[in-house]
């Protein structure tokens, strides 16, 4: 039988004009973005409220609270130190949390993914589309602390323009991390373990509120494995001046983290969604 040939011959005609179906397609990602956009139109107020105000409040509280005790950390004024550090916290919160909960709810409770995967959308495209959306949102939200710090006297600098890019790559990694955990946890309550066991230490030991080199030696070394630390360092350098060699290293670490998380998130989602 010539089914294989017939299948090949048919490809061009079957797909809508100008859209050959390849393994990885922008059109497939756009489908997931259309879904996200429809949801965002409905929920932008609540999601933006939390995403923008939470880091702002934390920053003001720490800024005024500790700021009255500590005026300088190394070469930075304390408000500048946490204003840049909080970008990392915002990046983590706005990517890891929705990265955990959205996929879990959509897969387990709403069966949205089942519906979507019956269309010409593959699991790796679904995963990529959703985390790119999250990371894009995160890269905008996470600028809030810098804006607040600027209101309190942080000088604008051209390097600040790359903050969204730094956050984007960081958020990709953490959104994918969240998505991977959503395929591992036995129930939605188990996210508590992930939040307390992973997210909280990640956010505390990232050089946001205090420099990690004040910690005991082994913690300091372990902290180098924390992607958020690299994000925070990069953001500070973007604002106060790049250190090219170190910054390439930080950026490479963020990229490597995102790539590794992509591989395990896709594998986990495939295991859960394709029977």
């Amino acid at each position, binding site marked *: 039988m010539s*089914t*294989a040939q*017939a*299948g090949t*011959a*048919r*490809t061009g*005609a*079957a*797909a*809508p*004009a100008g*859209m050959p*179906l390849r393994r990885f397609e922008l*059109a*497939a990602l*756009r*489908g*997931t973005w*259309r*879904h996200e956009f*429809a*949801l965002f139109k*409905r*929920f932008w107020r609540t999601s933006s409220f939390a995403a923008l105000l939470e880091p702002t409040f934390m920053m003001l509280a720490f800024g005024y609270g500790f700021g009255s005790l500590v005026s300088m950390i190394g070469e930075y004024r304390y408000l500048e130190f946490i204003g840049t550090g909080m970008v990392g916290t915002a990046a983590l919160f706005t990517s890891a949390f929705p990265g955990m909960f959205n996929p879990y709810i959509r897969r387990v409770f*709403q*069966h*949205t993914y*089942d*519906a*979507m*995967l*019956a*269309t*010409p*959308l*593959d699991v790796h495209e679904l995963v990529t589309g959703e985390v790119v959306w999250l990371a894009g949102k995160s890269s905008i939200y996470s600028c809030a602390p810098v804006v607040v710090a600027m209101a309190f006297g942080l000088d604008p600098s051209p390097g600040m323009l790359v903050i969204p890019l730094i956050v984007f790559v960081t958020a990709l990694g953490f959104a994918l991390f969240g998505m991977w955990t959503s395929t591992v946890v036995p129930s939605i309550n188990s996210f508590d373990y992930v939040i307390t066991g992973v997210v909280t230490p990640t956010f505390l030991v990232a050089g946001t509120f205090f420099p990690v080199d004040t910690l005991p030696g082994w913690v300091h070394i372990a902290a180098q494995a924390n992607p958020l630390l690299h994000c925070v360092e990069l953001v500070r350098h973007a604002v106060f001046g790049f250190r090219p060699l170190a910054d390439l290293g930080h950026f490479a670490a963020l990229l490597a983290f995102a790539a590794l998380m992509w591989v395990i998130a896709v594998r986990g989602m495939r295991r859960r*969604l*394709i*029977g």
Partner: protein
Amino acid sequence: MDSVRTAAEPVVRRSYGGPGATGEPAIALRGVVKRFGDLTAVDGLDLEVPAGICLGLLGPNGAGKSTTMRILTAQAVADAGVVEVLGYPVPRRSKHARAEMGVVPQQDNLDEELTARENLEVFAHLYRVPRERRRAAVDDALALAHLTERQLTRVRDLSGGMRRRLLIARGLVHKPRLVLLDEPTVGLDPQVRSELWGLIDGLRAGGTTVLMSTHYIEEAERLADDCALMSRGSIVARGAPAALVAEHAGERVMEHYGPPHRLAEIEGLARAAGLPTRRTGPSVSILRAERMPPSLADELGPDGVSRAANLEDVFVVLTGEKVE
């Protein structure tokens, strides 16, 4: 209903020289096996669905109907066997098959937070309906489901029947060549159900291939050109409804009512005469009653009710289970 479909041109370009033209089957499954741990849900399934027909897939709960449908969209991967959908080998080229296929799942998986229209818009994107035709495609699908008036209602505020109609419309928004309907009319009132029958019939009349699983025998008898009876993961009978009835249940059925011991006695007598029987609640049905020897008819007495054999008789005889 069908006027909406026939009036508009296909949204996704049909592939000429495809199955319809060559007589190649829309679906071909050969020796398909699917296991979940120790459980074999699909067990050496052979199933061919010619292009352009409506095939009714009947079978008791757990027979493997939904699993088979998931194999066709590559959402389940067969452990053995060959799967071809619209000429594409699955799962290897399932993306192509999915682009030209619409799926209406057994379980409602609409996005409850979004409106009816938004649900369709999202899927028009996912199905790659070209931009310039998207709006019309969504409008058509809404009209098809009689939801034009309710298009801005959130799904969670729609009635069960409306949701079901929307689910069907979602699977048709790109005007697919092949539609998989997994129990499409469950939970619908008789009026909506018969409307949907009109719709499904219209699809088939328009050349769309339909694979429809159902527990409603009447639905299969009315809509299906061909029926496949599935039991324990494989097909146990296949043919046009009338032919299946003639082959497995004969022409007439005699139903006898009575106390349990009398029913048992009747069963014994009928079996002795070589006639198949089945229990139907408080009665026993003797199939192939047209072949009943006069002596047996005398023995059973005049209080039996004669009726035409139907697909349900076939179903019960072949699967040993009851249907709704």
